[in-house]
């Protein structure tokens, strides 16, 4: 058997060399197939089909080249010159495509880390929008105003990414001011009633409405509502107006910024009554309900 394998066919090539060459080529083909299949399975669903194809082809080509180089050594073909030349070309290409390579590496890392997925709503470097596609070199984002933005993966990878829909639910807040003359307890009850009726205001975590601050111009209410991530904007836009209407129905209103200036020692009541002179309106209508309670007015002396 050993004798057959050592039989010289051509120059210094033996039968054994030829068999080994064939075995290496077959092994290369099988390994390339296996790695392609594993890669395809691993990347499936993580990125676009186009990118998966490209990645698989790139890996397959690298494996073929390596396999052929190894197999060629059995045919006594000296590829060292080719390798040196390839190395030099590689260094030159590497320098020239430094950014491209860093984008490529970032793209591969993004695929495995998966901070974002296609369809997610994200904020990156001031760009807000939906992820349209994650490629090997760049990520495409469609802004809310419909603009196309291409973000290089290197830039995306090193930036702070806010994924607005990564979690199933998110919270949004309102700050609502009411007048000092209004009953905050009644306002809270009215707001909660409206929130409870809205389907996208989650039952759990429960919404909270509370007096947050006693402001310069009114009582500041804080409203905190949890909503499904994909529908929070609908809830946010609908609820604010609904809460406002409910407060109005309870005769609770938003205070307007006011500054009452008193001149000298003039009697405040006299000054107030003079405001309505020559008009069809009452003092209350001119000053607003909040002025009925003197402590609500910002009083300044000049």
């Amino acid at each position: 058997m050993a004798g057959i394998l050592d039989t010289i066919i051509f120059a210094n090539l033996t039968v054994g060399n030829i068999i080994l060459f064939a075995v290496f080529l077959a092994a290369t083909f099988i390994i390339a197939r296996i790695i392609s299949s594993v890669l395809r399975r691993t990347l499936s669903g993580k990125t676009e089909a186009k990118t998966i194809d490209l990645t698989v082809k790139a890996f397959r080509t690298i494996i073929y080249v390596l396999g052929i180089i190894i197999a060629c050594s059995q045919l006594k073909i000296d590829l060292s010159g080719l390798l040196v030349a390839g190395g030099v070309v590689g260094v030159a290409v590497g320098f020239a495509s430094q950014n491209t390579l860093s984008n490529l590496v970032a793209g591969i890392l993004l695929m495995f880390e998966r901070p974002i997925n296609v369809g997610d709503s994200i904020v990156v470097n001031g760009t807000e929008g939906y992820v349209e596609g994650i490629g090997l070199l760049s990520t495409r984002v469609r802004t809310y105003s419909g603009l196309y933005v291409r973000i290089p993966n290197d830039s995306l990878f090193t930036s702070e990414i806010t994924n607005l829909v990564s979690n199933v639910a998110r919270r949004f807040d309102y700050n609502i001011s009411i007048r000092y003359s209004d009953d905050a307890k009644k306002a809270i009850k009215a707001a909660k009633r409206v929130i409870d009726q809205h389907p996208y205001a989650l039952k759990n975590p429960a919404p909270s409405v509370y007096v947050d601050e006693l402001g310069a111009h009114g009582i500041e209410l804080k409203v905190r509502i949890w909503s499904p991530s994909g529908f929070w904007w609908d809830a946010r836009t609908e609820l604010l107006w609904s809460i406002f209407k409910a407060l109005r129905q309870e005769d609770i209103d938003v205070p307007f910024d006011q500054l009452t200036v008193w001149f000298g020692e003039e009697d405040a009541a006299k000054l107030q009554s003079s405001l309505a002179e020559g008009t069809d309106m009452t003092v209350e209508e001119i000053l607003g309900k909040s002025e009925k309670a003197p402590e609500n007015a910002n009083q300044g002396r000049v």
Partner: protein
Amino acid sequence: MPISRIYNAAAAGRRKRPLSYGKSDAGNSPVFTYGKFSFDYAVNFAGLSLGFEDKNGMYHYKRNITGWKHEAHIAVENGAFYLQPIEPLNLPDNVTDFIEIKFREITIEPNGKTVVFLTMPIEIGVFLETKNGDRTLLDIVSFCNPKFSLYGAASRGVITRYHESEVYSLPPAVRNYQEGLLRLELENNTDEWATVSRVVLYQKGLNLYYDESCVSACAKMIIQSSDVADVFGVDQPIRDGMTECVQVFEQRRTTPFCNIEGALLDATFTMDMGMR
């Protein structure tokens, strides 16, 4: 003062919540008729009106439920339409695939079993059918106000269609256009007492059945520990003679807002973030 008297005094001062085992105020409600109808049939029921007008060979579908209207043109020959209860996961949008029912606490003995009846919201599907039996969903209406909730944490939980129910030991009378009955079999597989006050059901495997007065589904909850339970639907009616509903599940996409990895195995949902 003896402890028993203190307890009684405290109990007397406490506001008692009404228990409603096997009783419901829906006994005298009108009954909605589900089934297959020809296009000349019109519905006018509790604020819902729907029907088809034949306009030169094409049907014009009109629906109105308390001011919420929908219209469509339908081209079909010798067809019919169905009114059937469907799972309450389609309105106002495809938000979730999970139904959460909150009820008063039930404490189950170690290795114990019990069966309770809960109410669950339902929606009504309007299906079209050709003479060959091909069906499609035309419209969905509901007499319930939808409400959603979050089971678990925002980072690792699921959005659920929320409903509160009393606990019944016998099937109560319910408004068959608004609510269905869920027969829930509770099985405590642990050696400790377990307390349950909510169930989260995955829509797949939760098959609805209906007859002339009731809509129903069956599910089983197997308690694995004090905080973990497996919940899955059981494909059976609560009584003989009920008709199986068309499953809308096959026609809708699964919600993307399902985050729990490993908690959903086919039709079994593992409630691993508490049962209370």
